[in-house]
């Protein structure tokens, strides 16, 4: 062996040593509270500004924050959960809340409300309801949200048509769409497709049943006919060229809302959650006019709209400074100045005080969203209980690939697809027993 060998080893060891020392120094922390959220640039900027505001008011507290986009966020959260390294305040989503809460990863917030650390005095209980799992509050609603159909007012005007009845049914939708298409020659409806699983669940809510039973071990209804009817209607409409076919929807240049057909004026209506319409309004430019409309409902049913928390803040069980976390959430939801910065970017604020405070400052899109939620709230159906564990499995591996896509690609009849869906989903739900 020559001396060069030892140089290699020595070099490698030195590297490791230096870095270990470096990390040891970096790892020493003061009173740190970690906060994580998902979003895009505007949300990051606003949230960071509020964090700095809170730190200025609470000297000695250091909030360390992390952010990512929605997809990356959940990869990160799953990794951190597996590693037992969750933050003190984490943004949560309705789709995941019950799964996380039932696995004991989240702390209930009720004790903090009782202690007065988390102020809910100006928040109506209907806004809190969506954050409850098995009777306990696990997520603080950060903004209210509902499904909507965006109407292109210019297209309606050009067609010489009145806006539909706000309590319209799917039959009305079909008729309005056909008329729009006949008169304008464009698609009455573009993307995203109307076979979305959240349209299915909303349909169940408006029929007065829950999608799943209370234990989450089976469906909460037995009659599949309304869904079968809905898909037959979609097939009729896409065949007639009234709405974009599923194949055409798949071919869009972007899967995001910015490039959807309503933006490019290729379609006159679009289904969207109300907190996402800002992206569409701004991508379409200033000289277009849109209005948010409630969802169509099945014949004779009650409202298909319900108020859904757009996202939550939750406190993971692993957090060691839960009181501090609760105080921060309280500030985030209630403080007027902070909400001037946040400016309803996460959905319409749940605190009535904040809503009133922001109302006069709103721009056109903001005013339309606030107004829409108020209109919807008047006769909204109650939200169904959070989805049972395995819902994502059902959605990703059964609803979309085994039912929706084969049916809308006309590879199998609706009835056959529905039967497959029911049996495959039941097999997954049975795992919750």
């Amino acid at each position, binding site marked *: 062996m020559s001396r060069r060998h030892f140089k290699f080893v020595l070099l490698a060891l030195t590297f490791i040593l230096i870095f270990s020392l470096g990390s040891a120094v970096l790892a020493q922390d003061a009173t740190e509270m970690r906060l994580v959220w998902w979003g895009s640039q505007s949300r990051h900027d606003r949230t960071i500004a509020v964090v700095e505001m809170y730190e200025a008011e609470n000297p000695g507290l250091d909030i360390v924050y992390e952010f990512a986009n929605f997809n990356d966020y959940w990869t990160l959260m799953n990794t951190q*959960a*597996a590693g037992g390294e969750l933050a003190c305040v984490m943004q949560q989503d309705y789709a995941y809340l019950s799964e996380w809460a039932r696995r004991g990863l989240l702390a209930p917030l009720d004790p903090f409300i009782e202690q007065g650390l988390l102020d809910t005095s100006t928040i109506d209980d209907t806004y809190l309801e969506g954050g409850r799992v098995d009777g306990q509050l696990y997520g603080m609603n950060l903004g209210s949200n509902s499904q909507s159909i965006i109407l292109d007012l210019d297209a309606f005007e050009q067609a010489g048509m009145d806006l539909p009845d706000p309590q319209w049914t799917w039959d009305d939708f079909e008729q309005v769409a056909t008329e729009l298409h006949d008169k304008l020659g464009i698609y009455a409806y573009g993307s995203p497709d109307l076979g979305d699983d959240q349209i299915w669940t909303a349909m169940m809510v408006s029929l007065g049943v829950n999608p799943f039973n209370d234990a989450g071990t089976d469906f909460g209804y037995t009659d599949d006919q309304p869904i079968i009817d809905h898909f037959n209607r979609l097939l009729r409409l896409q065949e007639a060229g009234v709405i974009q076919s599923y*194949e055409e929807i*798949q071919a869009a240049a*972007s*899967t995001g809302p910015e490039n959807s057909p309503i933006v490019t004026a290729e379609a006159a209506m679009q289904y969207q959650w109300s907190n996402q319409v800002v992206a569409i309004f701004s991508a379409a430019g200033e000289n277009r006019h849109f209005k948010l409309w409630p969802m169509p409902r099945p014949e004779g049913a009650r409202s298909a709209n319900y108020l859904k928390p757009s996202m939550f803040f939750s406190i993971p069980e692993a957090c060691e400074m839960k009181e501090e976390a609760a105080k921060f959430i309280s500030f985030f939801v209630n403080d007027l100045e902070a909400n001037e910065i946040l400016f309803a970017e996460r959905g319409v604020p749940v605190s009535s005080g904040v809503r009133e405070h922001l109302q006069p400052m709103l721009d056109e899109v903001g005013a339309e969203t606030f107004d829409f939620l108020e209109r919807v709230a008047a006769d909204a159906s109650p939200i169904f209980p959070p989805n049972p564990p395995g819902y994502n499995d059902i959605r*990703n591996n059964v609803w979309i690939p085994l039912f929706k*896509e084969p049916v809308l*690609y006309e590879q199998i009849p609706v009835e056959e697809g529905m039967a497959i869906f029911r049996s495959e989903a039941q097999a997954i739900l049975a795992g919750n027993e």
Partner: protein
Amino acid sequence: MSEPIATLPVSKRVDEAASEAASQPKRRSRGFKQNNAVGYLFISPWLIGFLLFSFIPIAISLYLAFTNYDLLSGGEWTGLRNFERMFTQDIRYGRSMIATFKYVLLVVPLRLMFALAVAMLLNTKRRGVYWFRAAYYIPSIIGASVAVAVMWRQLFGPQGVINAIAQLLGFDPINWLGNPDTAIWTLVILAVWQFGSPMLIFLAGLRQIPSELYEAASIDGATSWQRFYRVTLPLLTPIIFFNLIMQIIANFRVFTQAFIVTAGGPLDTTLFYTLYLYRRAFNDFQMGYASAMAWVLLLIIGFFTALSFRLSRYWVFYETKEG
């Protein structure tokens, strides 16, 4: 070797083939005395890194393949349940297999041929060739970004450039991304278009061929095709072999393109194996099942790699064999 390949465990096969490859010099005892201390010293960086950072995670993932671990809470031992489910119940698993094999069979040969052809073209001292090399490498570095997703979807869109050209040539426009029969082609073309890395490796390999050999061949009156066939190709075989192996491995593991451009659709026709595995692990919380999928993939790739090593002795030319 006369024993049927299929009866051996894959790891053993790879092992044999590899030992063949890695310790080729053993055929020539002259000058290559065995020297364990020096050998291990040289490979120690990798060995230490492997033992510290990879070995335990790999062992854990093997264990998890036999459990129902769901990321958020500990898993229970379920024996072969995951594998049984994969092969007998999971319809999407079959779809992902079909998509992956189709992709590998199309991309590996196309990409290698294209990369080699372009490398030959750019292996010259003509003026400005620098810039062409940089230009040709550019698609590969734009690779995995959101820009490629948007641009590619727009290129193949109903009003995109590709359809414009098709119409100019008298073909009907095709809904490339929406049609389950054609969607995979958009990804194949993307992969072939991003031929930069094998091209660069070929270029490096071409630089290593001594120019004396070309001169000698020219003096013998060889045509350029003969020079390519007699000098370039044989001397390049170790590099071709490397690129082949790496393209097989990389394309079986293809993830990013489908992840950002097609998201696996339509109708799961681009639901590549690793994409499906990732979704199962991180969207559906089925890490145990995903681990089982990963190990099956390892067996599949291992089989094809071992096969390539086996076959390599018939066509790969190493300097060390001569003498």
